[in-house]
């Protein structure tokens, strides 16, 4: 599937100012999201995956600053803009109408003292002031029905009257209200129970077909990745260390860390091999070392690994990209 890139992140670095010094939460990360593509960003907590995704919509937490790099976004009129240097006012017109984000704590994303309909009306009015309430509600109802909710009931309910799964789906409808091109989902299913989770995943897949937008979703749950992603991007200690199409990510991970993650995942199939976890703990991001950040935990490391950061390399079949001196190459 070769399509035009929708969002290109180039050499992005983000630092947090802390008492002990600067913490590089995202380090020289480059990432491309094509149109109609769903990209999964995986990694452990504290690897910078949420920071990277919030940088796109310019809601970095206090104390965080983009130190270098650019985020190029192809607008629907065909022009490409750098989201980082774009004027605030211009940027705000893009948000939600073209780039929508669903947060991890979607349970508290709705205004608790207003009925859910107000969130829909406010979001639409902010971008299309001339849209009437009737039009907005009609559209909202259509979307809510699409996400398998009783539209009438949900619109007239307060958020606390809805269950977690219902809120999550209502938020999804709200995100799609203005037909965005890119939807960023931060841990879309963590707060949901298993059966609801499956429904939401199926729904996300269907909606993608119907509205043809792109997803960037951040997760640590590999079974969600296997059902939702076209491409998988692995992050470790602020760096992107591997990108691969989903099938070959699971079958032939090249980076030892990706492989470790897959090996550590408990599986339900009957004949189950011994699970292996990755030894050691994630590194301190303040004390930057020159070599590969994964080297202290890696069993394939050599002296080269601790001295020099491996560059991003493209595999022979040009599907995989990885940053490792000693990748798993053969089958």
């Amino acid at each position: 599937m070769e399509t035009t890139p929708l969002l290109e992140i180039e050499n992005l670095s983000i630092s947090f100012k802390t008492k002990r010094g600067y913490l590089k939460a995202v380090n020289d990360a480059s990432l491309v999201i094509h149109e109609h593509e769903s990209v999964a960003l995986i990694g452990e907590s504290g690897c910078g995956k949420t920071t990277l995704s919030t940088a796109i919509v310019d809601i970095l937490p206090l104390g965080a600053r983009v130190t270098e790099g650019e985020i190029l976004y192809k607008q629907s009129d065909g022009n490409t803009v750098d989201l980082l240097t774009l004027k605030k006012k211009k940027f705000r017109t893009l948000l939600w109408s073209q780039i929508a984000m669903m947060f991890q704590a979607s349970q508290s994303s709705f205004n608790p003292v207003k009925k859910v309909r107000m969130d829909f009306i406010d979001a639409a009015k902010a971008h299309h002031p001339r849209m009437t309430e009737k039009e907005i509600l009609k559209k909202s109802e259509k979307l809510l029905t699409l996400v398998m909710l009783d539209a009438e009931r949900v619109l007239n309910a307060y958020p606390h009257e809805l269950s977690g799964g219902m809120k999550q789906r209502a938020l999804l409808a709200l995100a799609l209200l203005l037909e965005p091109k890119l939807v960023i989902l931060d841990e879309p299913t963590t707060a949901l129970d298993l059966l609801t989770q499956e429904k939401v995943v199926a729904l996300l897949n269907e909606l993608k077909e119907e509205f043809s937008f792109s997803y960037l979703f951040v997760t640590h749950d590999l079974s969600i990745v296997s059902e939702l992603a076209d491409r998988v991007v692995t992050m470790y200690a602020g760096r992107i260390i591997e990108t691969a199409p989903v099938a070959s990510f699971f079958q032939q991970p090249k980076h030892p860390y990706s492989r470790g993650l897959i090996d550590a995942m408990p599986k339900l199939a009957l004949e189950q091999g011994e699970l292996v976890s990755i030894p050691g703990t994630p590194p301190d991001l303040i004390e930057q070392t020159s070599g590969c950040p994964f080297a202290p935990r890696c069993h394939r490391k050599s002296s080269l690994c601790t001295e020099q950061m491996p560059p991003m390399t493209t595999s022979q079949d040009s599907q995989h990209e990885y940053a490792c001196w000693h990748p798993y190459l053969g089958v």
Partner: protein
Amino acid sequence: MKNLLEVHHLSKDFQHKRQPPVSILQEIQLQLGKGQTLCVVGESGCGKTTLGRVLAGLLPATTGTYSFLGKDVTRLSKKEKKEFRRDVQLIHQNPYESLNPTTMVFDILANPLRKHKKMKTIAELYPEVTRLLELVGLTPVSDFVDKYPSHLSGGQRQRVSIARVLAMDPKLIVVDEATSMIDTSLRINLLKTLQEIQERTNVSYFFITHDLALGRYFAQNQQLMVMYLGKIIEKGQTEELIGQPLHPYTKAILSAAAGNKGLLDESSEFETYVLGGTDIPSFTQIPQGCPLHPRCPQKIEGLCDRLRPPEIESTTGHYVACHLYRKSDSPL
């Protein structure tokens, strides 16, 4: 063998002001032997944490009996109660909130020893704290004793709370989603530590999780049970329950948990099984009869919506609460 704990017809209601009580646990029956693991799986809000809290002695049961080492827990003398408190320990879900942020790791472990084991001097306490930290793999110990919880990562904190629990030489540990806040790469390590401790100290685990694959991994060759709306709907030996699920609900969660079959488990043979509806009914309006019947694709009209299914033993040790497996000769 005498069971470590036995629970019969246990139920738990919560009172509301000016509203009828809400019944969270109903008719729970379970046994757990020494050195064994029982894993309970269920969706959020199915009552599994409440059950864990009842077993840990933090909540009284409304009806039914709960006996620990042959003694009814509600009728313990003061001295026995103190022993029970020592014997049953709970590992909490969130290691970021369950450790006192102003207490050093040494004191986190030493305080319960001071209180329950009457160890007073540092000379007594230090070797014991060292032993505990080594048991949970926090070595070199001297790196950790003078740290505060905020200096530790999530996995390390959870290890500290395990060490704190082990300080009491418990006979039963209720593990309430203890690994859900831990990263995948460290999770297996932690579970392995728990399993090693079981081999060494013969402790029993009541392991609460919502992740079937994790439960299957932890309760290998042990018991697994599935809860739905406060009832145990299926119980059996782990491999058998996963390999031959009987209850429609178990089939549905297995099918949901299997992930993308083509990519993850090529060998898996889970049938795709989908329930109707999306949400668990609220506890205030539990459906009549089988709690699953409004969502069940295999329901029997006139039976499932009227009569609560009894617990049926389909094969030895494999229990299921579903009318589909009713033996034809058994009375209704």
